């Protein structure tokens, strides 16, 4: 089923971006790489036969004589890979279970190209051009000699600075039963569903002196190639993709970039896609997809929906627009002209690739549970942090997942209300609040944001890459206000898009924009694991001879985290006094004298310091003002709950 919604305003024809992958006619990125791939999907064997011409420009100021590559699919080759060993065959809850769940990439030919034109893999191999036998698997992160997710080749001749090298590959990708967001699965219809990510030989990133953490005065650049880990994602250079796919005629396909050609011959559908200024190319194919489309400004939004979820198609599109609008306003333009939201199957869901995201929902999902909206907004946000800023997700996952979770929580709360993820009567759970709990109640003293993703224990990765950075950034926003935060986010995006920023770069932008040294903040909450918890320990009042009062509040900083806070003092006559405190001392006494006794002390009354792990102890009243209103209310509610429960249970016997 197709439903097209055309947006035409007074004869205004949508801009001619239709044949352009980005809004710019000039390159947006340095385009160090280009991939021209021809691939043929065999749905029976779940394999993809491909040929690929890769061009790579040496960004360094010295010649390069060795290249490194990722073969991510080899993580699913067998149970000896680092990925499988780390995950115990499990990734984010899903495990490989079918008879032949394994995948992998075999390169049957790799050689230096000897012509300028399209890849012609059957050309006779010139002497010294064939590199197939030089492929040498390496394992830079561990001592697992069985891991084949990274390889290097020594070049027969070096690549001069600025020179572009062309390499031709012939490869076959065996897709695994879906794991880690890639592979195949048999849908309810009995038809196969494919989500094809990280599926071709991909060159690693050569970080040159001055880039990220490579010293400016280093003699040469370093390859930053990590194995595929159970917790890790990816890292790649920007470039262009020209990908031609052959799939069975009945298949609906979604892919990164824009579709530029489509033809059908002998039951085979051939589709050609172009994606510019992106770091990756992924695609999906299934005969089951229902397609829904809508234009938003320059972006052609396409939703590919499972038949069981067709009632929720518009929810996908609406959520994508909610995200597009706010990213555009808060951070900067989305420069691509397409966005495809895929309703995948199983573990393919909740993943991001350039201009192509998977969301995920369930049949019958009620509208008061906005998990579909949340995941769509989240995955869209990766277009910025994974796609456009393209930080190193292996080493600094928080710059992608964490910054994205922060904006996601902000968007969800802004668009749907502060308690909107689950909204059932009076029971409301908001995104910012839920992210905060994911940090403050999950061993907050463990797991710094800056940790290589494979060095986390499983639980800490999720907390430190999603929940904690979201809470840390929400705290920074409340610390200096949304105006400053927005300036910072916009500047960060404007300065660093297409340039792989590091944590240090992010901090630099924040400091430039605000003019403030932020070491105290970053050292505690980004590089370190400081835990903030301020509590009112006691309130005491002494009546003086002249009937005035001398009062004292004792505040306790319970852990190592330090944060400036305000303290609100309320007196018996209703007067209120706000004080600010740098939060440094472990114990702090505030003494006040006045005509009225102090009845309440409240640290951080506006709840700006979201990293404070316990809010309940932030406030105290004197004993005679203690109130059981809440306890009584819950008691009454529990009485009626039990009464109802007992009537129901009585029916059982």
């Amino acid at each position, binding site marked *: 089923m197709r439903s097209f919604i055309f947006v035409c305003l007074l004869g205004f024809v949508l801009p001619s971006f239709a044949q352009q992958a980005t809004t710019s006619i000039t390159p947006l990125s340095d385009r160090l790489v280009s991939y021209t791939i021809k691939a043929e999907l065999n749905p029976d064997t779940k394999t993809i036969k491909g040929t690929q011409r890769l061009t790579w420009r040496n960004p360094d100021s010295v010649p390069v004589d060795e290249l490194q590559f990722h073969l991510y699919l080899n993580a699913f080759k067998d149970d000896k890979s680092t990925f499988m060993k780390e995950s115990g065959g499990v990734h984010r809850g899903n495990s490989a279970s079918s008879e032949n769940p394994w995948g992998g990439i075999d390169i049957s030919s790799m050689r230096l190209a000897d012509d300028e034109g399209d890849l012609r893999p059957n050309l006779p191999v010139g002497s010294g051009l064939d590199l197939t036998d030089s492929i040498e698997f390496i394992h830079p992160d561990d001592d697992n000699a069985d891991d084949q997710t990274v390889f290097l080749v020594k070049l027969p001749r070096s690549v001069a600075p600025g020179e572009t090298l062309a390499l031709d590959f012939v490869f076959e990708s065996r897709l695994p039963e879906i794991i880690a967001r890639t592979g195949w699965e048999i849908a*309810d219809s009995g038809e196969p569903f494919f989500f094809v990510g990280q599926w071709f030989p991909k060159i690693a990133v050569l970080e040159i002196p001055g880039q990220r953490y490579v010293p400016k005065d280093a003699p040469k650049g370093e390859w930053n190639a990590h194995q595929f880990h159970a917790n890790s994602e990816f890292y790649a250079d920007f470039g262009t993709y020209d990908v031609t796919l052959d799939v069975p005629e009945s298949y609906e396909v979604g892919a990164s970039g824009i579709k530029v050609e489509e033809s059908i011959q002998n039951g085979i559908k051939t589709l050609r896609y172009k994606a510019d200024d992106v770091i990756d190319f992924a695609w999906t194919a299934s005969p089951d997809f229902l397609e829904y489309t809508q234009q938003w400004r320059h972006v052609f939004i396409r939703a590919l929906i*499972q038949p*069981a979820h067709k009632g929720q198609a518009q929810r996908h599109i609406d959520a994508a627009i909610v995200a597009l609008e706010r990213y555009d306003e808060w951070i900067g333009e989305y420069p691509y002209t397409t966005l495809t939201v895929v309703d995948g199957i199983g573990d393919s869901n909740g993943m991001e690739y350039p201009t192509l995201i998977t969301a995920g929902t*369930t*049949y*019958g999902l009620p509208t008061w549970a906005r998990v579909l909206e949340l995941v769509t907004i989240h995955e869209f946000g990766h277009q910025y942090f994974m796609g456009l800023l393209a930080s190193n997700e292996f080493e600094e996952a928080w710059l992608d997942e964490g910054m994205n979770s922060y904006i996601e929580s902000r968007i969800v709360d802004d668009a749907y209300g502060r*308690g909107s993820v689950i909204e*059932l*009567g*009076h*029971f*409301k*759970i*908001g995104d910012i*609040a*839920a992210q*905060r*709990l994911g940090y*403050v*109640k999950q061993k907050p003293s463990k797991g710094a944001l800056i940790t290589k993703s494979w060095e986390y224990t499983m639980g800490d990765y999720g907390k430190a890459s999603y929940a904690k950075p979201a809470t840390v950034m929400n705290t920074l926003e409340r610390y200096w206000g949304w105006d400053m935060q927005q300036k910072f986010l916009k500047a960060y995006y404007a300065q660093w898009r297409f340039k792989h920023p590091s944590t240090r770069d992010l901090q630099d932008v924040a400091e430039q924009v605000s003019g403030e040294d932020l070491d105290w903040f970053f050292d505690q909450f980004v590089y370190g694991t400081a835990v903030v918890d301020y509590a009112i320990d006691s309130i005491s009042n002494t009546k003086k001879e002249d009937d005035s009062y001398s009062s004292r509040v004792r505040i306790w900083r319970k852990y190592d985290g330090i944060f400036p806070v305000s303290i609100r003092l309320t007196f018996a006559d209703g007067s209120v006094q706000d004080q600010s405190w740098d939060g440094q001392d472990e114990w702090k006494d505030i003494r006040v004298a006045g005509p009225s006794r102090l009845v*309440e002390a*409240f640290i951080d009354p506006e*709840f700006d310091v979201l990293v404070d792990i*316990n*809010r*309940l*102890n932030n*406030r*105290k*009243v004197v*004993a005679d*003002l*203690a*109130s*059981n*209103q*809440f*306890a*009584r*209310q*819950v*008691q*009454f*509610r*529990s*009485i*009626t*709950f*039990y*009464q*109802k429960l*007992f*009537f*129901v*249970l*009585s*029916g*059982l*016997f």
Partner: protein
Amino acid sequence: MSLHYIKSGYDSARERPALSAIVYVGNLIMGLILSIPVFIALSTATSESGFSGDMAGEFDLALWADMLESSGPLLQTLVSQLLWVLPLLFVWKMASSAGLIHAQSEGGGRSFWTGVGRYTGKATLLGLLFMVPTVVVMVVVVLIATLLSGVLTGEVGSFWVQFVFTPIALFLGVAFIDMMHDFGRIELIVGKKGVMDSWLAGFKWPLHSSNANSIYIGWMVLGMIFLILPFMLDVSMGGLFLAFIFQQILLFGRAFITVGWINSEVAFYEDTVPAAVELDETEGLDA
């Protein structure tokens, strides 16, 4: 025909509101007992925090998380309390049903407490016996659901099996056994049968008499309405004291329904099986 019995049940419950009050108060007391540790835990955690009023006003995830963290151990005792409350509830259900049947048999006007005193033991034994078919029905429903999920495959199929078929089948199956149990108890108390005979006799009622079914279903629907309404009230205006009061009124109504329900079943039984009744000694109307 069944309407006639429902009307009779309604009249009887109206004539003797004390019976509804007993059922209502019994339930209320058990709820009250269970709610005491909740109160203590929450009072300890929040009374001097200054947040009590805010938390009563609206749900705050952060404060709830802190509160549950600090009073977790005390709230955990709630779970262990269910261990003794469930058997107590079971015995109370047997005792109160025995009392209600006795009180409303032979044209009514008999003592609730005499029924409790005389029949609670036997009714409890009978109740234990009826657990057998209840468990059997549950197992059968689960088996059918398992078989069904082999046919209704996929996401949509399993949605219907898990969230529609299984709960409805369990509900109807349990209600079916509950109806047998009701009539089994009447066989025991009004028909003066032994426990084993009453158990066996109970099984035939839903199958033999369409009137028995209509009476049961009629009251069941009313009973459900009077449970769903307070649930809705709780969701919509939960925190307000007014909601508590309205819910209590509805729950009294629910107790009233229990009384009327049993009266209808007893009256129907007595009309259908008149010979089995043998006169008791006269009793005062003390409840």
